[in-house]
């Protein structure tokens, strides 16, 4: 299942890691494909949600959630409206956007990472100053941004953390999205997008101090809200699968974390996040940290690394304690109190959780 590539990189791109699956899908896919799409919309949904093809090829699920959300996302990209994935950190927004781009264009690398210090050039184009000085303004002197590249090649561009980009810079996208054209006033010309061009943006609605989208820009996007996993089992399943995946790419010793440990961890995260115990009997304070599924995955991972290198190879409470505490206690005063309270009132009382209680107490 795990596709170990001979090219040694820390983390291969989606289109490389799953090249085999994409090839098989493309071969079997006889439905109509929008122009410049590598796959039909149906095949894209199948790629993300997983399934077994007619020839017996198993497609791994990439997203463990509501199929309908992915269907809406893909349908949006077909209707040449841009897609905006919104959700709290760790709800697989980036993950989904990467795989969508890989499946549709075979290229998930046309990526702009949004940040507060960004200027328009990052979304439009820059200049090759040597060229500019030598020959004056010309098409050759333009250094294309990933968005411009995507327009020229008819591919999917991705913008991460759209709301972190200053508002005036965000608005550069309006013309690109509504008229599919990027004016180049310096050359009195423009660059028109090829069919197949579209844009997937992600944004999180938990952070403070972000730049709200202008309503003009918001209208150019279809919004899909990425939810947190609904049930404990669903979340445990996600953590388990992802941990196995990451473990294999990081060359960690093969022993996988026990479901029991994952369940305990996910339960702690869910309870603290929702502010109530799983049985709904006790109200809890919620810490300032987001405690998303992604964080649960990274806690298990670091625990596994600890166990592999410093322990006996099996994941135990001691290995997890540091990770858990680090994930929960983001504010050294408030969160610490909340975590201590949770330890004393909930963890201590649970029968099989004594080891976890001791391990966490030691660290605090």
């Amino acid at each position, binding site marked *: 299942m795990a596709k170990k590539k001979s090219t040694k990189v820390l983390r291969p791109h989606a289109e490389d890691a799953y090249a085999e699956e994409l090839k098989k899908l493309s071969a079997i896919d006889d439905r109509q494909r929008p122009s410049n799409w590598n796959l039909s919309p149906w095949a894209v949904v199948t790629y993300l949600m997983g399934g077994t093809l007619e020839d017996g090829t198993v497609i791994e699920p990439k997203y463990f959630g509501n199929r309908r959300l992915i269907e809406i996302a893909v349908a949006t990209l077909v209707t040449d409206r841009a897609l905006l994935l919104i959700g709290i950190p760790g709800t697989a927004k980036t993950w989904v956007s990467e795989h969508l781009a890989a499946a549709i264009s075979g290229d998930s690398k046309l990526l702009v990472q949004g940040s507060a210090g960004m200027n328009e050039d990052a979304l439009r184009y820059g200049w090759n100053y040597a060229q500019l000085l030598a020959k004056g303004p010309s098409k050759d002197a333009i250094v294309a941004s990933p968005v411009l590249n995507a327009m020229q090649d008819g591919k999917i561009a991705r913008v991460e953390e759209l709301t972190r980009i200053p508002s005036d810079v965000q608005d550069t996208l309006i013309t690109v999205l509504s008229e599919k054209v990027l004016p180049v006033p310096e050359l009195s010309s423009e660059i028109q997008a090829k069919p197949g061009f579209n844009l997937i943006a992600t944004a999180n609605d938990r952070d403070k101090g972000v730049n709200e989208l202008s309503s003009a820009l918001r209208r150019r996007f279809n*919004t899909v809200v990425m939810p947190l996993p609904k049930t404990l089992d669903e979340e445990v399943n996600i953590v388990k699968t992802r941990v196995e995946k990451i473990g294999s790419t990081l060359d960690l010793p093969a022993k996988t974390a026990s479901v029991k440990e994952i369940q305990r961890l996910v339960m702690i995260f869910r309870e603290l996040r929702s502010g109530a115990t799983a049985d709904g009997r006790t109200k809890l304070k919620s810490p300032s940290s987001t405690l998303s599924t992604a964080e649960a995955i990274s806690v298990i991972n670091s625990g596994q690394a600890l166990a592999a290198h410093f322990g006996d190879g099996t994941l135990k409470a001691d290995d997890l304690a540091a990770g858990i505490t680090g994930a929960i206690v983001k504010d050294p005063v408030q969160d610490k109190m909340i975590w201590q309270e949770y330890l004393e009132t909930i963890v201590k009382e649970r029968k099989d959780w004594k080891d976890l209680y001791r391990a966490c107490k030691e660290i605090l």
Partner: protein
Amino acid sequence: MISVFGIRHHGPGSTKSLLRALDKLQPDLVLIEGPPDADKEIEYVANPDLKPPVALLVYNPKDLSQAAYYPFAAFSPEWQAMKFALQRKLPVRFMDLPQAMHFGLNQMEKDNIQLPIDQLYRNEPALSPEQIAMRKDPMGFAARASGYTDSERWWEMLFEREENTDDIFPAITELIENMRADLPAKSKREQLREAYMRNVIRKAEKEGFQNIAVVCGAWHAPVLQHLNRYTQKSDNALLKGIKKIKTAATWVPWTFNRLAMQSGYNSGVISPAYYDLLFNNSEDFVIRWMSKVAQLLRSEDLDASSAHAIEAVRLANTLSTIRGNAVAGLDELYEAAISIFCEGHDSKMKLIEKKLIVGDRIGDVPSVIPVIPLQKDLEAKIKTARLSKEWKSTDEVIKELDLRKASNLLASHLLHRLHILGIPWGRQQNVSKRSTGSFKEIWKLEWLPDFAISIIEAGMWGNTVLAAANNYVVSKAQDAKTLPELTALVGNALNADLPDAVQELVHYLRDRSALTKDVEHLLLAMPALVDAVRYGSTRQIDISALEAVIENMVPRICIALPNACVSVDEAATKDLFESIIEVNNKLNILNNEDHLKSWYQALERIVSTPKVNGLLRGSSTRMLFDKEYFDIIDTVTKMRYSLSAANETMDAARWIEGFLYGSGLLLIHQPDLWNILDDWIDELPMDNFKELLPILRRTFSAFSGPERAKMLTLAKHGQLTANESQENHHFNEERAELVLPTIKLLLGLKH
């Protein structure tokens, strides 16, 4: 020849197929699954003023708890089949088991009477949830099995194609036959219904009809199609011995809301508004649906442009393609709307969901349809009270009435009368205390289709709203067990302007009050009676009879009250305390000297009876002091006596609570009283003080802020001397004189 058309109740898809098939068949008789009790009502369907959604109401005129509604929308196949037949002047009949027999069966089940069928089917078959779902909505079940969430879309995909329209009904019959074969024996009622339907068809055949169209729920199609599999003898045997109860039937307006499944209607549909759109505009319903979303959002002051609608239509269509459906269904529409109009959050959609999904259409019944006289009178009264707009409105309406206006007064009387009759169209809301006077009434009006049956039920009391309400109140009065029940009725009757009923009630009151031994009841009844006398004069009611009742009641109260106050527990004391204050207020308002004299004497006896709870003695003292029956010297004596050290401290504290009810000004203006209280608290041992603190706090916290502030200063200063409060300030005579001319001018006095 018999042609059976198995339809889906309220399914617009099957309606269209049915109409096409009927047109092709050209039958000479149409039989429809419906109550034969209402055969006579079918002809009204041709009347253009009978606007669906409407329902057939079949009821037992002698016992209105036995009633059944059969709702129809314009898109219901049964409705369209009736219309089809009437337009072509074809005979059309209902063929289901009559409601008369349903009621009879209910009765027999209650009385445990055995029927032939009970021998055959002893036990209801136990079904799995899947089988229950299959039986309830076979079409929906088949649709879900083929991957559709919406059976109408499935129907459209499967049957509405041009090339196979002819054969769809035989195909459906076959499909259902296969489904039914998988299920165990049917329920008793279903057996009886199907036997009856077969009998109706046989009878029609005997009458000589050649080409009979049978319209029934798809579930029944196979057993009606293959008549020869059943013998008339066995069917007759099944139906033998069922009691019949005489029924009446009429059309009543219905609402989309009641047609929706959410309202608990078994054969309901998820979205009547959507089905309506689908039936009337199947070509461009996605566009119309999205435009409706945009308009509804705009009416809620939310941004929604036409561009949004365009994008949403495109997304919905693309989404259905990705899901492998040829056309968008309700799910796709809804999800696309959330994504485009609402930025992914469904809170905005929730705002318009009721109007969008369920719809707010409401049916209408023309005046030619015979209704009971009460209904006619009610409609006329609604018109004169100018409430026509609110009647049959699906939304809740808040109506403010100013009783000084003639039409508003009429409206108020009408609403009160309907309330008495158990037709709770309006619910009176509490008018906030700040709004002045009792001229204002606020009503929350919400019309429900069920009022149809309530009106028929109320019809037994009289043919006009006034007469019915009058009779109802009087009959209630006969059943009333206690005096307060009676006086409450008097209050209702006064509000509803029922002078005849009030006169009648007064007789009952007189008899009842003479027999009542419970002084508590007399106390409770008193305020309502006094109100009746006060307001009765403005409502053309002869109040002399009421006054006579009060005349008799006051002495009874005054004689019995002091004894009733002795040795009662804490809770009863509290009730008595409140009643006494209320009665005291009312008697003072009436201001009848004789009454007041005996009332004061009664209070005085309470004050001087030692076993009476301090609360009552204190409050009585205060009332007498307020009315100057006690002068200050008397009061000081009583207070000192009650607060002497020999008394139980708890009782003393209660006395204070009673004495100071309502206002503490007394203490500020009467230094003698203040000083007694001050001394008493001073001398309290610490332990007792702690014990009493809650009561004292409760007493004093009821006073207004300035009063308490003043008391605090007094308490800081310690003892007051008698003249301190009226202390002579040092006036500057010269300066005072300067303002006198102006004051004279203001008062209009001569210099």
